[in-house]
């Protein structure tokens, strides 16, 4: 195993930052192993994303805009990644640690007889052996796990853990043939995108302002949190209690069963700090909490906890941040 293959997940050519993080890291690992760095892009919009990937230090970008990819649930994707891995030769396959990425990765474990490093935040390469660093048990443990020597291995990559460094090295875009003789079983009948366009992706935001049950309803997410998030140049997130109540979409949920975020600043508003929430945000740079209850568990892992009413504090804070921004501009 000396090549590195990146599975570039996307929707109609739109991808997340983690794809470019993987494209950057792939080169570093491939160089350490003395192999090639490759990427695979399949489905509608592939050509457009392949163009963007050319700005990264890859050798080859395999492409196929096969319409079946968006019609059937991951069956074609798994076939394509397997085919690309065979074309690339023995390789480490990097897959984003997203809901869909985890499914693809699991299936390839069996297809390729591969080992897997899950939710990887760093790689060490020594004497040709790749070890993966991953937080486990909700971040209570940091494990280092070696991938035993084999033709193929898989790693799911935590978004925001690796840096992005574009550098065009003349990657070749190469069509990859549709794997023959495959049947697909699970048909996608409808596909609804709930992410509001124009809003920053939660996992990529440098600042996250998250709200919980303490906000009491859907409106404060728009009237209270959004203005503060915009003033700070960040995105809005939520606890599961807020998502369960239907106040915000589940795509905003942070925690064990939602997204893991690592912004430089996390502002928790009306969130108690349950362990399942903590594991999704504990690695943030600075944590600030606003909570009526000084004894809420979130105080234990916040850098600053202000005991008070969110409804009156947040608008004033927003004003202060906005006027500081104006001052900086003028």
């Amino acid at each position, binding site marked *: 195993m000396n090549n590195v293959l990146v599975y570039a997940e996307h929707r109609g050519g739109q991808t997340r930052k983690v794809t470019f993080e993987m494209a950057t890291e792939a080169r570093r690992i491939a160089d350490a192993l003395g192999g090639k760095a490759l990427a695979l892009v399949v489905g509608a919009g592939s050509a457009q994303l392949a163009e963007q990937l050319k700005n990264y230090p890859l050798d080859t970008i395999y492409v196929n805009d096969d319409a079946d990819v968006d019609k059937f649930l991951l069956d074609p994707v798994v076939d394509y990644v397997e085919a690309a891995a065979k074309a690339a030769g023995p390789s480490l396959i990097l897959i984003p640690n997203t809901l869909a990425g985890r499914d693809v990765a699991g299936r390839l474990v*069996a297809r390729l007889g*591969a080992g897997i490093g899950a939710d990887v935040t760093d790689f060490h390469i020594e004497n040709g052996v790749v070890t993966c660093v991953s937080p486990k048990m909700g971040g209570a443990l940091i494990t280092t796990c070696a991938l035993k020597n084999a033709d193929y291995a898989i790693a*799911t990559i935590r978004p925001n853990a690796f840096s992005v460094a574009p550098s065009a090295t003349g990657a070749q875009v190469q069509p990859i043939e549709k794997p023959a003789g495959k049947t697909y079983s*699970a048909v996608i009948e409808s596909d609804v995108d709930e992410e509001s366009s124009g809003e920053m992706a939660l996992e990529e935001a440098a600042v996250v302002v998250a709200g919980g049950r303490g906000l009491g309803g859907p409106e404060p997410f728009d009237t209270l949190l959004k203005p503060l998030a915009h003033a700070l140049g960040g995105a809005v997130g939520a606890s599961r209690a807020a998502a*369960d109540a239907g106040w915000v979409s589940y795509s905003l949920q942070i925690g064990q069963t939602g997204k893991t975020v690592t912004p430089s600043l996390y502002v928790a508003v009306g969130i108690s700090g349950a*362990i399942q929430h903590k594991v999704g945000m504990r690695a943030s740079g600075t944590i600030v909490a606003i909570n009526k209850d000084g004894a809420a568990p979130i105080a234990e892992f*916040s850098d600053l906890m202000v005991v008070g009413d969110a409804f*009156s504090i947040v608008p004033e*804070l927003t004003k202060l941040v906005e006027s500081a921004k104006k001052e900086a501009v003028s």
Partner: protein
Amino acid sequence: MKIVVTVKLVPDPNSEKKIDPNTKRLVRTGVETVLNPYDEYALEAALQLKERAGGDATVTVFTMGPEALKETLRKALAMGADEAVMLADAALEGSDVSATSYAMAQALKKTGFDLLIVGGLTDDGSTGAVPGALAEYLGVPCITNARKAEVTGGALQVERETDSGYQTVRGPLPALLTTALTFGEPRYASLKGIMGAKKKPIAILTLSDLGLDRPVGTDGSKTQLVNFAPPPVRGKGKTIEVADATAGAHAIFDFLKEKKLV
């Protein structure tokens, strides 16, 4: 319809995890073993589908783990599962995702199923890779993160959560399904359920029942744990009571300024 649900037995996730500084191992003593919380949702889905199907539908819970944990399965039986099957063998110790899903798949082939419901994630290992690997080893469709599911005319109709929204998906049976937590809160076991669970069968399978054609356990694993350590400690910061909103807003603003975050 035979529904099988996989349930992993894990240390209570609500207990704070600690590492013994001498052995560098997770402290497990004094920590209760429970059903992996996600798998309780998978079981709830199975019980709902059984109730809707009526007739001769059954729910079997399946686990792979040390036989000593067998009695923990009674909770699943008390919630309403009809029977339990446990794959327990000392040679399975140290199995990684690859070895675990291979061994589980061979056992599940023996058990048989029309619908296999798997949890989304384990609380202790948390790779989320077992469902996909199981589906491949079993050669069945893999439909994940269901928040609604229905069996109609031998097919499975599912509404599933995605990274950016949701999808509706249809696939033939037999199939593997994983559940999102939005499928429905796990039910409590009734007193009658708890009493009845005592009489329900728990069958034990060992590797000699399976006839595997590759090694499992530590030798059959493709990964090797090198080290584990606690993360850098995040100390408790300041907690301040404020006289009014203006003071609160200023306290936060000054703090952000000091940290160069505004």
